[in-house]
């Protein structure tokens, strides 16, 4: 007859200790499944003697209390512990000194870096100042150039305005323009310079029929040639 497990289960509720086991299979490989008769095998619950347990507990407590107090004795009075033994204390001191030195070195390096950073920032500021000054000067020049340009344009216009025609005096101006005469007896260079008798002459002097360049008067060797020249100049249209 197979034993039902219920009895053992309910009786085990009143037991005080349970052993848990782990099984290792040495003969068979791990991918082979468990045998049929062992698949739902429950490890047996081993019950302990209640009398034995009641006898052992106060003895255990006493032992543990004494051993704990010995440990505390060593820890407090003799200052013994894995963490605070003599060797450990020395190592601690050395490590503290190391850290202190490293922190000092770190501070020095930080100070040097600070210096460099401050210098760099000062340089940047100075370059910015100089650049700003140069830009200011440039802008001034540009403004001056604009002014000169404008002055030129305005001066040209002023010059031209002398020749502006009044719409009220249209008829007078027309008659004046028709009666004007120009002298075309001049030569032009490839670069656009006006020449009259081998002397450079402005545009208005070239077209002017009454203008005579002075150099011809001085260079002229004979008076007869001078007279001829004056006659020529007069007779030219």
């Amino acid at each position, binding site marked *: 007859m197979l034993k*039902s497990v*219920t009895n053992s289960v309910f009786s085990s509720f009143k037991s005080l200790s349970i052993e848990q086991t782990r099984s290792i299979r040495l003969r068979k490989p791990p991918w082979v499944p468990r045998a049929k008769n062992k698949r739902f095998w429950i490890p047996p619950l081993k019950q302990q003697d209640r009398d034995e347990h009641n006898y052992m507990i106060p003895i255990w407590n006493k032992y543990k209390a004494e051993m704990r*107090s010995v440990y505390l004795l060593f820890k407090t009075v003799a200052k013994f512990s894995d963490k605070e033994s003599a060797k450990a204390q020395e190592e601690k001191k050395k490590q503290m000194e190391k850290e202190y030195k490293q922190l000092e070195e770190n501070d020095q390096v930080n100070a040097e870096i600070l210096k460099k950073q401050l210098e760099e920032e000062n340089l940047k500021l100075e370059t910015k100042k100089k650049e700003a000054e140069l830009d200011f000067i440039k802008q001034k020049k540009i403004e001056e150039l604009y002014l000169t340009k404008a002055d030129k344009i305005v001066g040209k216009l002023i010059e031209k305005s002398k020749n502006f025609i009044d719409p009220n005096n249209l008829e007078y101006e027309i008659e004046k323009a028709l009666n004007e005469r120009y002298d075309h007896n001049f030569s032009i260079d490839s670069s656009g310079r006006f020449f009259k008798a081998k002397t450079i002459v402005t545009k208005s002097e070239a077209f002017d029929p009454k203008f005579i360049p002075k150099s011809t008067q001085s260079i002229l060797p004979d008076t007869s040639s001078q007279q001829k020249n004056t006659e020529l100049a007069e007779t030219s249209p």
Partner: protein
Amino acid sequence: MSKIEYVGRAGRFLGKSLPQICLKLKNFGIGRMFTRETYKRYPEVTYYVLTDFEADMSDEYLRRGVFKADVVFRGGHYGNMEIPGFKEDFQLIAKEEEKFFLERTLSLGQKWREPTKVSKFVDLPPLLKEMLVQEAKEKNIQFDENELKLPLNIRTNSPFSHATYE
């Protein structure tokens, strides 16, 4: 009856975890009494009176959470503290049966047994004693062998301590 074969490892817990019971009760069972199967081994009475209930609903097995209760262990009061509600050991007490438990609780200061009295000094382990004696003799320290004793360190302040010095 056909033969019954139970499967799986047996344990000493018989019951449900606190959230598994309390999430079905009014006001989450605050004010109700609970016992535990493991504490039924004692002849005296142990029960919890719930005061705080906060279950972790993200748990699929409904075991986790923070639970606080007034503890009465073997008739003696131990005050309000956190209890392990995740253990599937708790049993709800019906309201008609609460009287039974309340009759068997002791008064506030009383406990289920008198505290054990312990002496302050105990004999040293023998090997240690001999080592100390030898050390003292080398350093020429005067001592009395009867006074070489171990001071016992015992926890007397906590609410779970049942020992005192004489």
